[in-house]
């Protein structure tokens, strides 16, 4: 995205091939220009209880793919996060989400906006419908929010009986707000790391933040270091959402599971995880994958 104008960024015709090219170019750029030694992040969907050492800076770039159950690329969604992390003390780190953005099919909220724009747009919609073709969603890239994340380490997974930390996150955008809290638990047995996160998340979406939702989730991960630079393992995500903060509106619980791998180099780390939905919930994505590339400097 570094090389695109604002108009290109917002262009609904911006293709997925262009999108992939931009992501790869951005990653290659960051890979090449940043010096330093990287920390290690073993999981893509779990947080560990250890925090960045005091005074250390890190940049993380996230890419998440959510594959539509329709198995049609036009319905897949890509989410991106550009994050800067700083170790305030050996037990406390702060991260700023410079930008959370996505490349996804646009739904009803944009349609409403388009309709409000007036007759010219309405006529163009009618013309499209007259053509009789099946209307595919257009995907476009859009900035979502920026935020801040705080993690305070309480106990150490290597030297204490159980590692623990508390996590808080807040994200705000022009049509999105989110508050999230987590309890992080971890135990390391030499090269084996086991983590568990308990999560509660409050979300407000829409032009007037009118769509409210609370979500409870728990994640679990195991990772084994098979080589000084490589660890492999598995992650599980279990989540359930309650729209309108109402327990009677509970959506079906979703459960995802799959493998992960992390490579830790001198100047960077790359962590990837792919999770498949194991519950029969046709409305949800049937696979999600995440890659995180981090650089410490």
């Amino acid at each position, binding site marked *: 995205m570094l090389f695109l104008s604002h108009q290109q960024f917002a262009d609904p015709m911006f293709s997925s091939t262009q999108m992939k090219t931009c992501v790869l170019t951005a990653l290659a750029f960051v890979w090449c220009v940043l010096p330093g*030694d*990287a*920390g*290690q992040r073993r999981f893509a969907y779990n947080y560990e209880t*250890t*925090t*960045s*050492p*005091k*005074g*250390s800076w890190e940049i993380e770039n996230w890419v998440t793919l959510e594959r539509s159950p329709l198995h049609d690329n036009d319905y897949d969604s890509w989410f991106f996060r550009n994050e800067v992390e700083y170790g305030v003390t*050996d037990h406390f780190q702060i991260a700023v989400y410079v930008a959370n953005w996505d490349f996804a099919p646009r739904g009803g909220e944009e349609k409403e906006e388009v309709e409000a724009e007036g007759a010219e747009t309405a006529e163009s919609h009618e013309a499209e419908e007259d053509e009789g073709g099946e209307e595919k969603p257009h995907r476009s890239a859009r900035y979502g929010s920026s935020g801040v994340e705080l993690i305070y380490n309480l106990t*150490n*997974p*290597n*030297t204490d009986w159980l590692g623990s930390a508390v996590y808080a996150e807040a994200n705000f955008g022009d049509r999105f707000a989110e508050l999230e809290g987590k309890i992080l638990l971890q135990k*390391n*047995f*030499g*090269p*084996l*790391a086991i983590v568990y996160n308990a999560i509660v998340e409050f979300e407000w979406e829409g032009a007037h933040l009118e769509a409210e939702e609370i979500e409870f989730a728990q994640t679990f991960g195991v990772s084994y*270091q098979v080589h*000084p630079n490589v*660890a492999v393992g598995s992650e599980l995500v279990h989540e359930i959402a309650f729209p309108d903060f109402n327990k009677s509106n509970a959506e079906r619980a979703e459960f995802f599971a799959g493998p992960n791998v992390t490579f*830790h180099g001198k100047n960077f780390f790359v962590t990837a995880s792919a999770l498949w939905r194991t519950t029969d919930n046709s409305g949800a994505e049937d696979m999600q994958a995440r890659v995180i590339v981090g650089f*410490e400097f």
Partner: protein
Amino acid sequence: MSILLLTGCASTVPQVTQQLVMISGKPAALLEEGRRLYGGPCSSCHTPYSPAEYSAAKWVRIVADMSERSKLSDAEHDAVLAYVLAARSMPPAAR
């Protein structure tokens, strides 16, 4: 099965015991500080290696290299080095 697995993955950051203090001849406070750094800030960047994994000479080089990369002070360097050398000199059964 799981007990076997966990037993096989014994702590790579052993505790500072009286035996460890006696064997190393270093002050307990220094070894405790070394353990805190080795199991804390050091392990936030990489999995801590078992002290027995490398020779004493190699640990001297590793700790010097890592201290420079992670900007440890001289006192912190000395504490980490004292701790890993003490821990690696422990008999396997006592680790």
